């Protein structure tokens, strides 16, 4: 599954939020969108997932224009994990993950649906919570459940909107490792909006740096995460070290 974004622009009441965004995501790749607040990371994720409708440009999935697919078929290709999930009403974890089967379900829940939900819970390591209520769980567990719901859709592309921003460091690493493990299976690609440059550096194949609604730089972590770019995009002086695995590690020093 190959995803291509072509000249995508999005705005609100005449105010531009994204301008002329073009990028490609190959099969089995992890891509991180980075940039300061308001650069348009989350908006880009939502445009790709058709939650928002871009004014200009298009998204192509294996050469087919995404906007022309019917909603159900599209949701079998693309899974979305929101930044945080606020529950209003009591649902069990099993019920929440089962919602991810919505694109595949008519009315009756089949054995296959139940098995896929069970497998997903097992993969995420949260099968013990299946019968618990969502609001009894911690932030990290909730994030895993939201991911499990997206995976139950059996998507080929997983979109994650700042998946680690509300988590402690242990859960941050756990969630990122799950994404990496999924992508390494070779059947799914991931696009993440990320605040943490070092997590982005460690877990992505490609980094897209956004500034003022446009793409400032695209490339592998080593070529994008350099002091000069960080200074220009974030307005922060920093020192970048290359760690043992050859990935850049950013130490922010001072705002300019």
């Amino acid at each position, binding site marked *: 599954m190959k995803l291509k974004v072509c000249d995508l622009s999005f705005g609100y009441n005449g105010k531009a939020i994204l301008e002329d965004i073009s990028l490609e995501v190959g099969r089995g790749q992890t891509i991180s969108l980075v940039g300061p607040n308001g650069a348009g990371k989350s908006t880009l994720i939502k445009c790709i997932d058709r939650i928002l409708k871009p004014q200009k440009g298009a998204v192509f999935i294996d050469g087919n224009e995404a906007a022309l697919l019917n909603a159900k078929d599209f949701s079998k290709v693309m899974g979305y994990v929101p930044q945080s999930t606020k529950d209003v009403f009591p649902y069990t974890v099993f019920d*929440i993950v089962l919602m991810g089967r919505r694109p595949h379900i008519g009315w009756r829940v089949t054995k296959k649906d139940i098995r896929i939900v069970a497998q997903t819970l097992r993969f995420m390591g949260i099968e013990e919570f299946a019968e618990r209520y969502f609001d009894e769980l911690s932030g990290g567990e909730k994030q895993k459940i939201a991911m499990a719901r997206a995976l139950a859709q059996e998507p080929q592309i997983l979109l994650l909107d700042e998946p680690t921003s509300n988590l402690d460091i242990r859960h941050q690493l756990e969630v990122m490792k799950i994404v990496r493990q999924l992508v390494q299976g070779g059947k799914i690609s991931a696009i993440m909006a990320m605040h943490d440059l070092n997590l982005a550096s460690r877990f992505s194949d490609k980094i897209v740096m956004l500034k003022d609604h446009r793409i400032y730089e695209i490339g592998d972590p080593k070529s994008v995460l350099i002091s000069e770019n960080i200074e220009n995009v974030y307005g922060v002086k920093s020192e970048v070290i290359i760690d043992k695995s050859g990935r850049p590690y950013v130490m922010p020093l001072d705002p300019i």
Partner: protein
Amino acid sequence: MSDDFFGYDFKDEEEDLESEETYARLTWKKTFLITALLALVFLCAVVAIAVGAASSFGPLEALNAILFKFLPVEEPSAFAQLIVLQLRLPRIIMALITGISLGVAGSVMQGVLRNPLVSPYTLGLSSGAACGAAVAIVLGVGVFGAGRYIIIVNAFIFSLLTMALVYGISRMRGTSVETLILAGVAMSYLFSAIISSLKYVSGNEALREIVFWLMGGLYTTKWENVILLAPLVLIFTLLLMRYSWDLNAMSAGEEVASSLGINVNRIRIITLVLASVLTSSVIAFTGIIGFIGLVSPHVCRLLIGSDHRYLIPASGLMGALILLISDTACRTVIQPTEIPVGIVTSFVGVPFFLYLLIRRKRRWWQ
């Protein structure tokens, strides 16, 4: 993923079977509760038929009046037959229909707007209906001229217009749920003001009628009302249940629902329109019966969770149960007078609701 899980083997026959059993068990629990509710409603209906203010015949004779229609039992007195078949029975069925429609509409409205405080009342539907009724009572004018049904038709149309207006106002600000609810609350205040002014200018007779309408009641029920409403309530309930999965997905938030392939705005307007027609048509006949639309879904969520496939029917039955018990109390507690049912639903329901709130630790309304 039919053969593997994103390139990994997470198949485990034994655990898969176990999870199927878990799911079956959870489902069974919900089905059991619905069946139990159904049985309880039936039982209460039988009791409701048996009891009443008439002193010339007892409970057994009252039940015989119905059985006599189908079985060769001892013939009850003509008076008993009249009271039971023409007064009690239609009223009891009306209580069930009204309770179901309020419970179903309440659960759907809360679900689709993701807000536990939503009910036909908070969205302004009830006050719209009340205003329509008051206009008809005081000024004697209806949307469709004058006639026997002028109050009912007026209440129905005002109620639906309110929903359209509230939705229209929220549309102007990009259909946020908060605006919708606040617009509903604002409209309620406006209608209350109109009703107050109508009360102020109206004479004794009209004032009495408005007050009675506002308190809601089932005492005017006739068979023709039941025959008109029963199929309507059944059809609309089934139509709304068709959207259970969409409502489930929408409780995860608009964005997630949309990523699950749901056209959020379309589902929202369809379900709100269906739920509004459902409640409006019933409260046009009964007057304002508050509280049931708000509390039935909550009670059921505490009992079986929020899966709308089960919640909608359970909430409808819970509404029927609460209203039937309340209405039976209304006509039996202080014989031979009647208490308006709107008062009783609150007295019966509020303590029960508060008990559930305090006893249960789960707090989903924050």
